């Protein structure tokens, strides 16, 4: 294998780029197959997501969800844990936030919002710590358990919203609207209060929270003792045990933090946009986190960049579906799946050809006899 070694810079740039390019190439073929022009689609997608201030703010709003769920998956991944449960954890986090907002509707915003955010984090963390504990102490595979917990969350929340928390006057399975104090400050309202005229958008300060969370995750992983333990556990679980790391503790705490990050999705959706708890508000964003984490190579900066790309896909995809009705929003899910396939499962596919290409250019310099 010595001749196929890949320099680090190529591993961090060329390989992910080749993987994403392959995903988009196949997506282009899909667009072609349903009888549309992939280049027109691409142009509409970029214009729809970045071309206007409104499009851009929607892109950042979607990206907020993906940063949170992407960080959630990435952090657990660093510890060698595959958390497929971000969707269910975010769902439960929404319950935590809603309980605060509905129980004490009279609180002022400065108390209500931090309390609701903390409740979201705690509920998300608890829903993730249970599978973590089961993995650490009972040996249940975390992938299976988190999948099961997603479905249990779906049933639990459906029951709560239909039978317990529904507004008495409403037929919809959703809670009454929260008090105005429970609304995360929105950027459009902030800009208007300074006298700017801006289009309405759901973008709110959760976006800043997401960026802070990304910085926090970076610090945690590379600048703390716990982060060192997380990385050791991820690299070699038995070595971590041998080195005296309490693996149960690290697994449970890591899953707790992972679930807490997933809770950010509820903060953005429930507190930032909907202002009430409703059925299936997670809308699959938890699963996008897996694609984002894989594409961002489980690095916080990579997660933020991948989230921006997926934010563009979601916003641009909505515009695209409006302009070209044959390309429905399901196209985004296809692209997402292809990214997971090429950047995840087939991750090594282009490594050998890229190494070969690099060696081709290198050989004369490294081999003086030639």
């Amino acid at each position, binding site marked *: 294998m010595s001749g196929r070694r890949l320099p680090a810079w190529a591993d961090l740039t060329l390989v992910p780029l080749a993987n994403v390019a392959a995903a988009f190439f196949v997506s282009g073929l899909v667009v072609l197959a349903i009888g549309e022009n992939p280049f027109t689609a691409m142009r509409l997608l970029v214009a729809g997501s970045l071309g206007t201030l409104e499009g851009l703010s929607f892109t950042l709003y979607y990206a907020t969800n993906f940063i949170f769920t992407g960080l959630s998956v990435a952090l657990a991944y660093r510890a060698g844990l595959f958390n497929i449960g971000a969707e269910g954890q975010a769902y439960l986090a929404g319950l935590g936030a809603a309980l605060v907002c509905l129980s004490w509707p009279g609180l002022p915003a400065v108390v209500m919002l931090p309390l609701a955010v903390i409740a979201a984090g705690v509920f998300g963390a608890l829903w993730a710590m249970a599978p973590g504990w089961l993995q650490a102490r009972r040996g249940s595979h975390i992938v299976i358990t988190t999948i099961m917990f997603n479905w249990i969350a779906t049933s639990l929340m459906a029951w709560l919203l239909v039978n317990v928390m529904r507004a008495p006057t409403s037929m919809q399975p959703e809670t009454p609207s929260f008090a105005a104090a429970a609304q995360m400050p929105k950027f459009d309202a902030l800009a208007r209060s300074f006298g700017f005229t801006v289009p309405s958008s759901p973008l709110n300060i959760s976006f800043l929270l997401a960026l802070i969370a990304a910085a926090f995750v970076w610090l945690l992983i590379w600048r703390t003792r716990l982060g060192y333990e997380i990385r050791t556990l991820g690299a070699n679980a038995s070595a971590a045990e041998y080195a005296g790391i309490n693996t149960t503790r690290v697994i449970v705490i890591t899953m707790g933090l992972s679930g807490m990050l997933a809770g950010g999705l509820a903060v953005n959706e429930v507190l930032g946009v909907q202002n009430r708890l409703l059925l299936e508000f997670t809308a699959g964003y938890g699963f996008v986190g897996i694609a984002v984490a894989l594409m961002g190579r489980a690095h916080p900066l990579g997660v933020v960049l991948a989230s921006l790309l997926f934010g563009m896909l979601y916003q641009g995809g909505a515009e695209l579906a409006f302009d070209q009705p044959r390309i429905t929003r399901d196209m985004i899910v296809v692209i997402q799946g292809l990214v*997971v396939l090429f950047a995840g499962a087939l991750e090594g596919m282009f490594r050998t050809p890229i190494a070969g290409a690099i060696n081709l250019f290198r050989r004369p310099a490294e081999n003086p006899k030639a």
Partner: protein
Amino acid sequence: MDFDAILIVAGSAVRLATPLLCACLAGLWSERSGIVDIGLEGKMLAAAFAGASAATATGSAMMGLGAGLGASLAMGLLHGYASIDRNGNQIVSGMAINMIAAGLTALVGAAWFGQGGRTPSLNGDARFSPLLFGLDGLTLVTILCAFFTWLFLYKSRFGLRLRAAGENPAALETAGVSVRRIRYAGVAMCGLLCGLGGTYLSVSQAAGFLPQMTAGKGFIALAALVFAKWKPIPALFTCLLFGALDAIAIRMQGISVPGIGAVPVQAIQALPYVMTVILLAGFVGRAIPPRASGIPYVKEN
């Protein structure tokens, strides 16, 4: 509940269990050969769409079955390529297949038929009709598949090799058998069985395809597989049990039980998942997966 009602619930339990059993046996073939597959859901969905589309186009349910089997087999082999030849992460690959199937079926369905992703309604020869006790051929074939799986797995040389690939692939390779070939056979069988289950959903149980019509059945099948401890005959009974739970949940909707009150339907629906978590954690009994499942086999040089 009188006798007639019990018969109705029993019949609907078997019909609801059929796609679960297909997917559960599919997972069994794959995981027993050492390849973890959380993409059962996606393969069934792809088969449901391909089956209904082909049945619509040709007017023949059998052509639908062929297309369903083919589509699911193709996705199974893709999973096999990623897991066996590329040593990729099997969970990630299964995830990818679920996403691609969910997106592609809805997208292509909307583009082809222009009915928001559904296929036109199937009737006459384009849909499987009941043969025996209100059950159609696919259900009967599925139940037979459980017995054949048992026979192959425990009474044939091939079955022994398949189990060895999932428990100790290095020993199998030492015996001169290609682990790669056995595992490909496992994922191919997995693809075919998911194809059967998916086609059943859209060409027999329902009269056509609806976007996301598998609605988590692939994951209940995964739960059933754990519950059955990766064994074919227990898989049959677990799927019948889960099918019965589903049938009872439908029947109990809005009915008040004396002494308990109305049982929430969601509680019955969550039961398979809760039971699986408890079993997997070893609080009651213990479910242990095939030892080498999920680990790519890299041949020593």
